[in-house]
């Protein structure tokens, strides 16, 4: 062993020791990510090449057949179109409304602001399926507190309202109320973090509340908005519970059986027993989410270290 390698070894071991506590902090997360994130992902890659004709996986026997099956299914284009429409409506609208509400709440501190934040947060504390049941009541003109509004718009019954062409908007409304509270709290926290000196300087320079919001606060919480975009996009690509539950025999709304790509993947797995095609489709949806995140991070320089 030469002197140089010994020195290099010592350097690495010193660095390793220095970082050890950091690694310890990361370890629990890493274990869970491997077990419940990366592990199933790798398994999905594996079974996407497996043949399931007789229920039992025959590894590497299918080649690319599962991908062909999934991507040429008669519902593939339909579900992709639906999710695209939903994303176009739900992501920009969701982000814009949440940021607007957070900025408005931050303009006036005090009891009203904190009460409103709590109110916005309440629907988010209800889990997905239960929230959907709540939404069904809200959308039923006979029972809803908004019943007269719905009837004024010409929707006399739940069945008249829930039609395939209105689903992207309906799911956006449900998704907004379930997620908005959390994001309002996060953006509000970010706004609280803005230095008082900056805001005071702006005020002395003659900035009114709106100008402060637009030119000072908004640019300073931009990283949080990008973060919200990535998570909302990845979450909404995976839309499943809302269309699945609305279409069950118990609710039986006019929702096509496989409306979102995730429902189609579920149907591949649990109606047809083709876990391979389900995995292929799930991987595609993962790629869509990752791709969008990558683009946004690249275009905005989200991870650039600030000087």
């Amino acid at each position, binding site marked *: 062993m030469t002197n140089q390698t010994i020195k290099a070894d010592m350097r690495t071991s010193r660095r390793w020791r220095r970082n050890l506590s950091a690694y310890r902090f990361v370890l629990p997360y890493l274990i869970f990510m491997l077990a419940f994130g990366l592990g199933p992902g790798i398994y999905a890659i594996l079974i996407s090449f497996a043949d399931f*004709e*007789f229920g039992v996986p025959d*590894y590497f026997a299918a080649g690319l057949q599962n991908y062909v099956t999934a991507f040429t299914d008669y519902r593939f284009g339909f579900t992709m179109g639906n999710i695209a429409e939903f994303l176009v409506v739900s992501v920009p609208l969701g982000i814009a409304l949440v940021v607007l509400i957070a900025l408005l709440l931050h303009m006036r501190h005090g009891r009203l602001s904190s009460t409103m934040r709590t109110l916005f947060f309440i629907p988010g504390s209800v889990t997905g399926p239960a929230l959907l049941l709540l939404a069904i009541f809200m959308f039923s003109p006979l029972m809803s507190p908004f019943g007269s509004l719905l009837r004024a718009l010409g929707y006399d019954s739940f069945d008249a309202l829930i039609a*395939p062409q209105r689903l992207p908007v309906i799911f956006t409304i449900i998704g907004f109320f379930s997620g908005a509270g959390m994001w309002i709290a996060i953006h509000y926290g970010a706004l609280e973090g803005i230095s008082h000196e900056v805001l005071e300087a702006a005020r002395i320079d003659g900035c009114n509340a709106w100008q402060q919001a637009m030119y000072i606060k908004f640019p300073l919480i931009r990283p949080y908005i990008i973060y919200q975009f990535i998570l909302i996009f990845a979450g909404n690509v995976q839309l499943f519970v809302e269309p699945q539950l609305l279409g069950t025999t118990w609710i*039986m709304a006019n929702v096509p*059986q496989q409306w979102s790509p995730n429902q189609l993947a579920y149907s591949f*797995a649990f109606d*047809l*027993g083709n876990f391979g095609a389900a995995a292929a489709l799930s991987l595609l949806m993962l790629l869509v989410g990752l791709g969008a995140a990558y683009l946004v991070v690249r275009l905005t320089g989200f991870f650039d270290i600030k000087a």
Partner: protein
Amino acid sequence: MFKQIWKYLGLFVLVSIFVVACGKTEAPAEITYDENAPITVWIDQDRQPYIDAYKAANPDKADLIEEAIVDREQFPSKVLLFNNTNQGWPDVVFGEPRFVGRVADAAHNFPLDLKPWVDADVLNNYDGMAGCTFGDQIFCVRNDLAQYVLYYNKPLMDEFGYAVPTTWEEYQDLSDKVAAEHPGYLLGTFGDGWTFLAYFDPSGCPSHELVDDNTFKVDMSDGRCVRAAKLVDHMIANKTLWNTDYFDATFVQQQNDNKVLMVPMASWAWGVFNGTYYLTAEHQLGVSPPLKWEDQEQAIDVAQGGSGWMVSRHTKNPKLATELIVWLTTNEDLWSTIPNFPAYKPIQSLFQDQVSGNDIFANDPFPAMQEAAGLLGPLDKWPRFDLISPLTEVVKGAYQENATIESVLNMVAEKLTPLAQTEGYEVVNQ
């Protein structure tokens, strides 16, 4: 640093793929039967007393039977997961015949052919076996039937001076009379997949006919489909049909406002008339046999539900499993206590003792129900996919577009054909 992470990650992926692929599942070995092997029975809450009754009657077998209360909607997907791990299947499963169809294909490969295990005299004595029969194999025995009968409001019919119709033609004529003389009164409802079947199956309309276990026939241009569509369109137009499923709050309201003159519904539905859904006065509920079309020799009846029992082909103890399901479906003491219509013909009269004395009825419901049980047709057999959701989409879509049912009939074929093809059926329209 980043490069190193990728290196480790790549290694991890490779190792995992290797490990998983090497743990490849073995081909299933030939099962050796054992008459003392324990069996697991999958049931719902309501069926638990049945199993307990069997245990009480057969104490020597009691220890061998383990009950598991499950949500059977998940049963077909659970079978796939068990197939993946090659273990864990239940031995006996309770469920509607639509589940039998779903687990009888090559991927699920679940039910055991009962013919070698159950006496032919017994097997031939059940009504409604179409849903259990696949080629020359029998994959389940029926527990109870959910054959449709015509429920009518006797006091109201008497008051208006109407006779209960016996054919669909008379039913339509009556609708015109009601529309003219007593507008606002109803003769049924048409608003989802089940109500679609309630009007189209009795006509013999081939909207979901299983020619054999691999051939699915849908031909909505058939005259029998068109006449059923014309019938419902006529009655939607003259407002004698409501536009929801049976349990929608608005239809329940119509029932409770005493506006429903009659409605075709399943044999179990008398149970929802006594307050669980509809409020019904004593001696109000009349029951009459299913309607027929004039050109039919006898009516074709339809069912909404009705259950059965199947045995797993993976069971180690088929003798006990089949003994159990025969006992559960034929035992007289047990069926003297069950409020469902038994599928096993020799004990059907036991049901009469239970319902005939009920004050809700205006007449003895049993003769109509027994007649209906024998009229269940070949359409009472489920394909490997759900029919109700796509049919519901068609019906609700028509209402939303203000279209007639006749004009959207082709949508039924458009929705069901690719579904059936995806499930591996050859789809024909002749």
